[in-house]
């Protein structure tokens, strides 16, 4: 220890590693602070528009999500979110086998209309075995049967100023706020966008959104609204719910869920 040099080097090393640890901690705390202020998340969220435009430019309007075979189905298809809505009106509908249920389509349309489950089943149907990609990261495959949303929209004749299709659902969260979702016309008229009343060859189970759920196959799971009760065509989304176009969108998730 007579030589002054080695301690000096250790000090430098200690200083360096100390400085780097401090910098790392500050950087982490900085990231957390940035996540909670106003301007930074709004800067980050600019990406959503960029991603949507880039993805739509890269994919044709009719680009189809991959369809699988029945052998590819998941043995267990997880029922995320609500699996049995705690809502008195909804529970009454289950008891009656959805006999009195009607899907009302209104808002900015020429001819508002209501459809019973029997009427929907009588319309031309589409059956598709597709992959459901949850925002959490998992995927499950099932076969869905339903009526094309585009066919229903043609019947009610959207007004020119209508820009979005909003789906109001029966399932409330702990605070009583009900689930809702919205899509635009590009997605609504896509051939694989259906209101499904059947799953894997059976009637759609309650856990998966009986009597009907939306399937938007090129977007993530939270767009696939379950327990759809009413459809409304609107010009803007900022005056509905929390103003972001959907239940999860109001909690900070992207409205465009193509990625």
């Amino acid at each position, binding site marked *: 220890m007579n030589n002054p040099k080695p301690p000096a080097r250790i000090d430098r090393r200690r200083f360096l590693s100390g400085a780097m640890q401090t910098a790392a901690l500050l950087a982490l705390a900085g990231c957390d602070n940035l996540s909670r202020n106003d301007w930074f998340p709004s800067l980050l969220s600019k990406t959503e528009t960029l991603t949507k435009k880039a993805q739509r430019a890269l994919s*044709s309007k009719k680009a189809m999500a991959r369809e699988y075979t029945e052998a590819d189905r998941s043995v267990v298809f997880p029922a995320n979110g609500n699996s049995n809505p705690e809502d008195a009106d909804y529970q009454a509908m289950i008891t009656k086998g959805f006999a009195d249920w009607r899907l009302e389509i209104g808002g900015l349309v020429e001819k508002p209309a209501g459809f019973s489950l029997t009427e929907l089943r009588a319309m031309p149907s589409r059956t598709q075995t597709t992959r459901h990609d949850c925002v959490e990261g998992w995927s499950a495959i099932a076969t869905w049967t339903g009526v094309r949303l585009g066919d229903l929209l043609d019947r009610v004749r959207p007004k020119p100023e209508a820009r979005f299709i909003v789906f109001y659902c029966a399932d409330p969260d702990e605070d009583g706020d009900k689930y809702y979702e919205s899509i635009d016309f590009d997605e609504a008229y896509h051939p694989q966008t259906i209101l499904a009343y059947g799953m894997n060859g059976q009637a759609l189970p309650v856990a998966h959104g009986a009597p009907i759920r939306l399937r938007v196959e090129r977007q993530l799971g939270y767009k696939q609204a379950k327990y759809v009760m009413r459809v409304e065509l609107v010009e803007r989304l900022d005056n509905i719910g929390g103003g972001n176009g959907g239940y*999860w969108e109001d909690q900070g998730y992207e409205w465009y869920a193509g990625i």
Partner: protein
Amino acid sequence: MQEQTPQTESQPERIYRHALPVRIWHWINALAVFILIMSGLQIFNAHPALYWGDRSDRDKPLLALRAMKTESGEVKGVTTVLGHPFDTTGLFGYSGDKVRGFPSWATIPSGKWLAMGRQWHFFFAWILAVNVFLYMAYGFASRHVKKDLVPTRPDLRNIPTAVKDHLLLRHETGEAAKRYNVLQKLSYLGVIFGLLPLIVLTGLTMSPTMDAAIPFLLDLFGGRQSARTLHFITCFLFVGFIVIHVSQVMLTGFFNNLRSMLTGWFTVRTTGAVHEQSEAPGQN
């Protein structure tokens, strides 16, 4: 001041090592990769398990980070790799008294917040992708790739010696230190033309819209869940690269290397062996 004079007289020579575009690229990339790794682990924590194929069959994960209650009622973090469980309490599965895949110090944001993790991830994913594209365009146009990165024939013949030298922590000096050595060239090429495109493409394969636009992506990687697994593995190849890269930077003269990537200027000793004094140039 207290510098030991090396045996042979050595002449410090300043060379201009990194062109401005490379330096800008390097630091944007470093920032983006760090944020992408940590926000990526936040996203992974929303479902901390990996699978192969199109579906995620929950009974067949390749990797799962879970929390389990022992008989005594205590909670343990358990990492299961290909069916083999390991106790990883405090690190994976359970840390900071919380059930979470990766611990809070490894994720952005630190707490569980998937929506915000996604916002960070996609913003910096765009920066990374554009940055990589610009670098590749520059690298070919300026012949940087060909001149500085593609190994020469003598380089390739020298691989065994280079491996031995690296393991013995013997580093180039003089003329040889002015260029990248063969292992540096191969690892930089591997990162730029291997890992970076792979991480971008496997990331895109997780996007349902991209799968509809380019169905070939699903065939290329064997399904969406396989792509997610490959994305995760590539992420940890990046972590491995960063650990080796930063330790080499430290071993071969931290301040000299740092200065060269900030200002472009790198100091080389033209003669004299400075093996033991590998930090010497930085102390000038």
